[in-house]
């Protein structure tokens, strides 16, 4: 099993709801905290999910693109083998990459090894922290089903984000990646990110026999 989040770049409007809800949940969550020592004077502190905004193209064919960027929970996560203490590890059962704060020495080597710059150093606790895929929510059996998904997925107002198992060919995320040419970032660095994005192009219209018959009946 490899849990992942797929973001449809056609739907993402850069509202940062996922960025804020990540911080909100994990500041209080069991696997946190995301430090927030001086939130008003220093809002540029630690975020596990950051929305990068870009202008694309040249006028008059210009546009704006938003790229939500958090841990990609890579298949070949380069942050894991470099860690001398074993604090960085990848779960065998669901593919989520986590940090064991108790054995982290704060050497930051994993931050240099991660191609995506999504690990964050907590100066106060002296450890590296990052997106946990909200593992505390996923595994909390006391939560209702709709809450057992990452906070960023649940809070996205445009439903741009989809959560699921990329190793299951029948899952929604696998089908989205297969049908919509989902891609991972910086593939040349060999980390094999599990997190994928759906490119900005019109979604292909899927028409089956039933649709054809219905339209034929309505019109002719």
């Amino acid at each position, binding site marked *: 099993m490899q849990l992942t989040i797929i973001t449809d*770049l056609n739907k993402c409007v*850069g509202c940062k709801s996922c960025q804020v809800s990540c911080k909100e949940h994990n500041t209080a969550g069991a696997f946190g905290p995301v430090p927030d020592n001086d939130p008003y004077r220093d809002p*540029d*502190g*630690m*975020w596990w999910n*950051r*929305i*990068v*905004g*870009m*202008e*694309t*193209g*040249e*006028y008059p064919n210009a*546009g*704006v*693109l938003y*790229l939500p*960027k958090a841990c990609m929970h890579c298949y070949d996560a*380069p942050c894991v*083998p*470099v*860690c*001398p*203490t*074993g*604090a960085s590890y990848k779960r065998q059962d669901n593919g989520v990459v986590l940090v064991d704060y*108790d*054995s*982290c*020495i*704060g*050497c*930051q*080597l994993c*931050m*240099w*090894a*991660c*191609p*995506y*710059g*999504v*690990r*964050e*150093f*907590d*100066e106060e606790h*002296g450890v590296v922290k990052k997106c946990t895929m909200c593992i505390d929510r996923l595994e909390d059996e006391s939560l209702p089903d709709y809450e057992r998904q990452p906070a960023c997925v649940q809070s996205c107002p445009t439903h741009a984000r989809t959560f699921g198992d990329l190793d299951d060919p029948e899952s929604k995320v696998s089908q989205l990646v297969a049908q919509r040419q989902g*891609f*991972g*970032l*910086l*593939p040349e*660095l*060999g980390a094999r990110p599990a997190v994928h994005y759906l*490119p*900005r192009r019109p979604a292909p219209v899927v028409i089956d026999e039933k649709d054809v018959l219905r339209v034929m009946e309505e019109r002719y």
Partner: protein
Amino acid sequence: MRPTTPLLLITVLQGLSGGITLAIAAFSFLLPPASDSILRNALLLSFAIAVIGGISSFFHMHRPQAGKYILRRLKTSWLSREALTTGIYAMILGVVALGPLVLPVNSWWYWVGGVLASIAALAAMFVTAMLYATIPAMRSWHSPLTVLSMMAVGLSSGGYAMLALLGESHLAAAVHRLAIFMLLATIVVAGVKLLQWKLFRDARRSLNAATGTGMPRAPYRIIDTGTTRPPYHTQTQVWPDLPVSLRGGLEAVVVLTMVLLPLGVIVATLDGTGAGLLTVLGAISFLFGTFVERWLFFGDATHSSKVWFVDQEKVGSRVATNRPSPALVHRFRNM
């Protein structure tokens, strides 16, 4: 990435200590013999430097209480291996340097210890260099040049320290031989550094926002890096781009202190008249240059995530402008 004092001290002092130890080995086994007391003093100096480097490595760990786990990933982590090899090196060196206080010198243990210390020094320097060279995301470091440069600079800094010790003692034959060797070593250092700086420039230029999206509608301009800004407190793998003048100035300092001044000292030393204080100045100059070189190695390195932090040149909007449109001006004039 952010250069930190412990990182500078660990890498520079480990190279310096290893270089001195290997220079001592060269004099013990290959070169014309220098005086025993000088070699023993050099061993003590090398050990003291290794200890200072080791102490500074504790300051690089932000949670030393978890340090007991550091050898857990010897199979895959170069940092685990670095802790092991540097520890072994310091232990063997300690025995060889401090042993003469209680054991007879020039007996078998001294020579065996010397050989083992030299091998351990080489291994520790190699492993430390590999730690940096094997990180694909650090575009400026992911190259054999990193290993070559760290080893060459470390060995040369030790060589210059040894030259200073010998120069002070006026051992003309030993100084002459070492000076010829250092002449070659300095030329190698200069060549490797120039190639490495070119690699740093290429890495910097090859990364921009367009490479970070995987999509074709280029060009891209970052408008919001997602609630972060220089100096990227929580993201030490990136560091604001160095101003061109600062980078150029520091590179000039490196060339002056690690190449030109030491070469001047060597030329003065070759004819046998320049030994003494001049060799000490040469060693100090090279060591100073090594610290500047290492600061640049860290501070000027480009990480792949820079594609999303890039402080790209601002391109003015083609639509919004402060100047009144000539067409509008014409219309108003004719109203």
